């Protein structure tokens, strides 16, 4: 009596069936550009590293070329202005000519190196460009391996990283060498030796200057403090005169603060200066180096693994993942991941998606959900198979309720 007889659950009548809201189609080329914009931002590390090397080589080559040429020109000037005997002039000219020849050779070699590096940069840009709808799974697979290699490099598992990159053919897309370089510097710093760190700073002088980095200054300060610690005051003062004065203009306060340690011994109890003698200062230096290193190459301080893992955790975090009988397929069924996911936000679902308890398949328009008289819902395919095997009888796997295949009703879930 309550139900309008016209619309009595007859699936064939002309009922206003809501158009099932199909999930948005797979990434179509039109949305590819937005995906790519984001991916460029995320792939900074991939592009920056070879590019920085390319830049450095070009600049260094230019500088040395400039130097050579200007010295040649000035020698000629010198020859022309002064009175030299013919033999001397001839021998000088010949030596200049051979210098020019050597210069040409160097130009060729330098250009080859630059071209190789440009190739590397191009290859990486191409790789980013190659992400297509057809090969997206493979591309994502490569990305996964790259993330893992990045993690291994940061943890200094160099052998494993090289083996993995070889076996996955991603050697062109990873930069093992710069991490090895960084490890050398960090190890030296841990041994309280600033030499390799200073060499690295000298190597990357222009870049560090552009970002107004204080790293070299901090390194010099630490060396100074070590000299004071060893009570070699005279050496300390000489060192300060040589290396610390150029920084005085910009960092006077800090300089003064550290120089004052001369007045105290390394075993001083005065808190302000005791802090400077702490061995923990070396760890601070290591951290600073890591920061400069990452900034130079456009890398994040954390391994990419952490970032993507967090993104994945939040994308998969649902209230169901924390239930008792959660399926093992959901990574959040594991205790370790649950703990990690605690502070992260839940994901939001805007469309219904039903998964059949029996077959674990998605219930969509081709495999619609059917309801048993007791209210439990399963997919049409799974229920049909069960009915076929048991002469039309259906038994609910979760409650044990038994009914006939004809008692089932199709539900409309959009």
């Amino acid at each position, binding site marked *: 009596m309550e139900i309008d007889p016209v619309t009595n659950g007859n699936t064939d009548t002309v009922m*206003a069936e809501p158009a099932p809201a199909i999930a948005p189609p797979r990434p179509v080329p039109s949305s590819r550009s937005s995906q790519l914009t*984001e991916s460029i931002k995320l792939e900074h590390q991939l592009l920056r590293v070879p590019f920085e090397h390319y830049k450095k080589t070009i600049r260094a080559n230019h500088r040395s070329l400039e130097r050579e040429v200007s010295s040649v020109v000035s020698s000629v000037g010198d020859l022309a202005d002064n009175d030299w005997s013919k033999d001397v002039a001839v021998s000088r000219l010949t030596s200049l000519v051979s210098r020019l020849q050597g210069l040409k050779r160097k130009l060729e070699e330098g250009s080859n190196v630059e071209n190789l590096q440009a190739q590397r940069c191009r290859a990486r840009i191409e790789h980013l460009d190659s992400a297509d709808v057809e090969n997206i799974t493979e591309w994502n697979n490569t990305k996964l391996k790259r993330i893992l290699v990045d993690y291994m490099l940061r943890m200094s598992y160099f052998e494993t990283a090289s083996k993995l990159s070889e076996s996955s053919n991603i050697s062109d897309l990873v930069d093992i060498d710069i991490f090895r370089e960084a490890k050398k510097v960090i190890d030296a710093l841990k041994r309280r030796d600033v030499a390799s760190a200073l060499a690295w700073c000298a190597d990357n002088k222009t870049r560090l200057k552009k970002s107004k980095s204080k790293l070299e200054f901090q390194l010099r300060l630490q060396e100074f403090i070590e000299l004071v610690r060893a009570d070699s005051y005279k050496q300390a003062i000489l060192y300060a005169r040589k290396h610390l004065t150029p920084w005085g203009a910009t960092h006077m306060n800090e300089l003064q603060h550290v120089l004052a340690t001369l007045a105290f011994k390394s075993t001083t109890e005065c808190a302000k200066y005791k802090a400077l003698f702490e061995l923990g200062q070396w760890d601070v230096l290591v951290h600073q180096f890591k920061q400069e290193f990452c900034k130079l190459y456009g890398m994040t301080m954390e391994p990419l693994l952490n970032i993507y893992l967090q993104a994945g955790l939040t994308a998969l975090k649902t*209230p169901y993942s924390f239930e008792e009988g959660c399926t093992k397929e959901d990574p959040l069924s594991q205790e370790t991941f649950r703990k990690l996911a605690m502070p992260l936000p839940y994901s939001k679902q805007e469309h219904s998606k039903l998964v059949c308890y029996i077959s674990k398949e998605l219930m969509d328009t081709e495999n619609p959900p059917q309801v048993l008289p007791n209210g439990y819902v399963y997919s049409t395919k799974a229920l049909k198979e069960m009915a076929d095997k048991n002469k039309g009888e259906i038994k609910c796997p979760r409650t044990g309720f038994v009914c006939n295949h004809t008692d089932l009703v199709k539900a409309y879930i959009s």
Partner: protein
Amino acid sequence: MDPIGTVKDGFNQVAKRQKHYHSTSQAVTDRAFEAFVDSLVQIIMKHDLKTVLTELKLKLDSLSPINQLQESQKEWNTSLTKFEKLLGKSDMFPASSRSIDLDHQLVDKMLVEYLYRHGLFEVGDRLVKEAQVEVDDQLSEAIGRSLEIHRITEPLKQKDIEPAMQWISENREKLKEHGSKLELELVSLKYLEMLRQGKRSDALRFARAHFPKFATPHSEKIRRLIVALLWVSNLENYPHGEELFSLGWDKTSKELTKQYYHLHDQPSSSPLAVLLSAGVQSLPRILKLVRVMGLEKEEWEEMKQLPVDLELRDEFRFHSVFVCPVSREQSDEYNPPMMLPCRHVLCKQTVSRLSQSCSTRRFKCPYCTAHTTAAACRQLYL
């Protein structure tokens, strides 16, 4: 505009300018070289030393190599700055990464499991050594499983089904419980392979040995397979061929792996891989969300639920989710889905709102405008 296209163009510009610099420097050096050789020749031909040298100096000055080099380099520099602007600042994920304490030993263990699962045994071994991973029971079991599944599925690449058949016969009852059709599929694949190679008598013998036990439940398929024997010379034209050929060796191998893990009550893919794949798919959207909403770090850290659906692919669906089409809220145990007699489904809160909390008040279904009451609705259990 295709962002990668612009990056490519920018880089090409840089490379072009560099080539231009190179040719300039070559030209400059060549001309200087010529001038020098010229002067030398002149001196040897007994011309006045002083004039020759002054001429040379003038020549070099007019060539002004340094200026040319510097100008060329300047041009290169401008294209460089443009390119760097294109690359933009590296998005250091300011708001998207909360500082979670990732215990690296845990990650290392999961990494080892991942490597073994994907058959990269050597890399896994190397990692265990380098990272000094503590191989506890759980991990060694996982490794053992990976080795076993590799032993079973690797031969399938050479179309050898022996180890797989052996494993299946060892676990027959459990597989049957799950309604596994694996054995039949493997046997049919091998049979078809034999037919393809034209080994008619071998195929027949093989069929006699293996097909009988499938006769009853899958009689139709067996019949088709046997009939295929007659088409051994041109198997492609066999009319029922497509459905038989649709099983690939690859697909079956994957299915075998899945069922193996299912039997051992383990996830069918390494959880680390699943999480990272989900991360790779969702991170661009999350970053866009943060940017578009202009979130600060604190706002992000306090967020309890993402405001947007990340629209992951179906393979990441592990749980049924019902979202009420009217209120757009996710159902949970306090707000379950209710089915109206007209077969449309709404959440309980929507139903009670429509019926104004009165269980006998009539209301119209938002989809089909059929009249009904709250009492007539049934709760669904997904």
